[in-house]
C-alpha cells in the first residue's frame, strides 16, 4: 500500500482544524484508527454483541469466537508460544501494574532490587516504587549516556545477584531511542532476575518477537497501534503466570466458588475478572490485521525515513534543540525538541493554529525531564500515515512560531 492509499483508510485525517488541513503528529500519545478497526467495532455492536464464555446461544458463541480469535491474533503478532500467555488488560499501565501487584509483591523481599532506567514512563516507575515500599525492595535507576541511550556496561554494573526484576521500555516515548532489550534480558537472566518490557511505544512501530527478546513479561496498548482505547495486553511466560495469583476477583475468572474458598480458571482467564473488553479486543484484532497487511517492516522503514528527514530539517531551525540521539539509525519515529525562549505550550498553541497537533509537557516522564534539565518539551511523533510534506509544514510552523514570538516581544 502506498502512503496515499494508507491515508485514505483513516477518516479522521481528512478534516480541517482551525481552517488548515489537519497534520496529526501526536501518534505516540494515541494513534488514529483505520476504517477497518472502526467498522469491526461497529459490526460487533450491531451484529454480534453478547457476553463471552457463558451463553449457549448463537450470539454468545460468535462473541466468544471474536474475542478468543483476537487473542490468537495477538499471540501470532508478538510470537508468543501459546494464547495462555496472552492476557487482555485495559492497557500498558494495567499490564505493568498486574506484574507489580501479583508477581513482584509475592516474590520480592527486603534487600531485593528492582532495576529501571531514567527514561521510563511513569507507568513503569510508580508500580515499582509501590512494590519497593510494600516489600522493602530497593529501586535502582540505570543512568543514561549523553545522547540518552542505555549502555550495556551500565546494565552489567547495576544488575547483580540481588536484582529480581529489570523493567525497561523498548522504545522511549521522549528520546525515541530503541533499547537493546535482548541484551538487557540476557544480563538480567544471568543474574537470576526476570525481564519486564514496556512495549507501549515499540509494538506499534516495529516487529516484536517475545521469544526472540527472551523477556518474561511484555506489556502494550491497543490504542497506540491503530486499535481502540481501553484494550491492552500483558504477555507473560507461562511458568510465571501459572504461579501468580490474580489481582482482580469476581465473575469470569473463577472455576469453582464455595462459601469460603474459590478456585480460579486456567490461564489466561484467571487474570481477566469481570466481563472482558470484548469490543476492544476485536478492534485490536482488526488493527493487527491491518498492520500486518501493510507490513511492520514497511511501517518501520517509513518511520525511519520520516525521523531522518525530520531531524535533518528541524536541525536547520536556529535555536531548536533536539533531545535524544541525532543519528536516525538509533531511533524510532518521534522527535522531542524545544525552541529557545518559547515555552513548549506556546509552541503547541501556535502550531495548533496551523492545524498541526503536537504534544507539549512532561510526557509522563518527570524523572527523564529532570535528567534533560527541562520542565517540559514539545514532541512530534510519526506513524504510517504521516508524510514528509507534513514535516515540512511542521518546520514552517516552527519558523512562524519563532517569528511570532520575536514579533510580540
Amino acid at each position, binding site marked *: 500500500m502506498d502512503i496515499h492509499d494508507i491515508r485514505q483508510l483513516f477518516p479522521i485525517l481528512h478534516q480541517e482544524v*482551525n*481552517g488548515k488541513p489537519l497534520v496529526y503528529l501526536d501518534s505516540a500519545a494515541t494513534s488514529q484508527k483505520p476504517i477497518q478497526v472502526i467498522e469491526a467495532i461497529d459490526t460487533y455492536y450491531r451484529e454480534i454483541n453478547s457476553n463471552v464464555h457463558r451463553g449457549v446461544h448463537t450470539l454468545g458463541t460468535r462473541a466468544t469466537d471474536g474475542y478468543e480469535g483476537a487473542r490468537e491474533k495477538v499471540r501470532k503478532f508478538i510470537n508468543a508460544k501459546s494464547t495462555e500467555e496472552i492476557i487482555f488488560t485495559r492497557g500498558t499501565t494495567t499490564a505493568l501494574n498486574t506484574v507489580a501487584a501479583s508477581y513482584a509483591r509475592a516474590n520480592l523481599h527486603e534487600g531485593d532490587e528492582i532495576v529501571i532506567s531514567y527514561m521510563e514512563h511513569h507507568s513503569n516507575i510508580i508500580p515499582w516504587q509501590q512494590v519497593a515500599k510494600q516489600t522493602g525492595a530497593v529501586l535502582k535507576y540505570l543512568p543514561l549516556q549523553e545522547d540518552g541511550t542505555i549502555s550495556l556496561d551500565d546494565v552489567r554494573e547495576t544488575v547483580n545477584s540481588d536484582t529480581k526484576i529489570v523493567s525497561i521500555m523498548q522504545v522511549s516515548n521522549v528520546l525515541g531511542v530503541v533499547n537493546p532489550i535482548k541484551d538487557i534480558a540476557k544480563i538480567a537472566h544471568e543474574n537470576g532476575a526476570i525481564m519486564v518490557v514496556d512495549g507501549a511505544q515499540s509494538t506499534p512501530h516495529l516487529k516484536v518477537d517475545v521469544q526472540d527478546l527472551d523477556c518474561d513479561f511484555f506489556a502494550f496498548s491497543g490504542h497506540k497501534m491503530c486499535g481502540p482505547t481501553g484494550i491492552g495486553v500483558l504477555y507473560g511466560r507461562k511458568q510465571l503466570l501459572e504461579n501468580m495469583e490474580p489481582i482482580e476477583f469476581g465473575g469470569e475468572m473463577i472455576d469453582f466458588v464455595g462459601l469460603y474458598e474459590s478456585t480460579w480458571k486456567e490461564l489466561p482467564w484467571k487474570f481477566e475478572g469481570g466481563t472482558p473488553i470484548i469490543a476492544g479486543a476485536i478492534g485490536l484484532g482488526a488493527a493487527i490485521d491491518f498492520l500486518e497487511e501493510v507490513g511492520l517492516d514497511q511501517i518501520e522503514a517509513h518511520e525511519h525515513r520520516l525521523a531522518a528527514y525530520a531531524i535533518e530539517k528541524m536541525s536547520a531551525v536556529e535555536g531548536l534543540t533536539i533531545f535524544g540521539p541525532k543519528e536516525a539509525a538509533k531511533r524510532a519515529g518521534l522527535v522531542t525538541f524545544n525552541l529557545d525562549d518559547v*515555552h*513548549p*505550550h*506556546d509552541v503547541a*498553541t*501556535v502550531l*495548533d*493554529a*496551523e492545524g498541526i497537533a503536537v504534544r*507539549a*509537557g*512532561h510526557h509522563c516522564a*518527570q524523572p527523564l*525531564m529532570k535528567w534533560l534539565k527541562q*520542565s*517540559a518539551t514539545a514532541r512530534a511523533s510519526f506513524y504510517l500515515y504521516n508524510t514528509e510534506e507534513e514535516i515540512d509544514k511542521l518546520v514552517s510552523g516552527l519558523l*512562524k512560531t519563532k517569528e*511570532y514570538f520575536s514579533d*510580540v*516581544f
Partner: protein
Amino acid sequence: MSSNNLDTLYRQVIMDHYKNPRNKGVLEDDSLTINMNNPTCGDRIQLTLKLEGDKVVDAKFEGEGCSISMSSASMMTQAIKGRNIEDALKLSEVFSLIMQGKDYEDDIDLGDIEALQGVAKFPARIKCATLAWKAMEKGLKEE
C-alpha cells in the same frame, strides 16, 4: 497564519508580564507559602503571601511554565497586593468566570488582567492561566 486568532491569546501586555514578571521571588520570614503544580504539563508555582490582619501586604511568585501561566501569576500578584482577603478571593471568582467565558460584574477594575480574557477561547490553556489563582485561593482560604 491565523494571527488574529493567536493575537487574542498573546496580547502585548501578557508578553510584557512574561518577559518582565512583576513580584518574582520568594518572601521570607513568616509569610504564607503555597506550592502548586499542573500535573498534566509540569508547570509549577511557588507563591508566597505576606498578610497583616486580613490584608495581603505583599505577594511574590517563583515558578516554571509557559507565557500564559507565568504572566497570569505576575498579574495576579500585582492585583492582590494591598487588597483584603475577601476582595482577593472575590477577584479570583471573577477571574474564574472570565476563564469560563461567563459574564461578570463590570464595575470591577481588572487592570492588566483583562488581557487574559482571550484565554477563554483556548480551552487547552485555561489551566495554565488559573494555576497561580488556584494557589492564591488555596492559601487565603486556609487563613
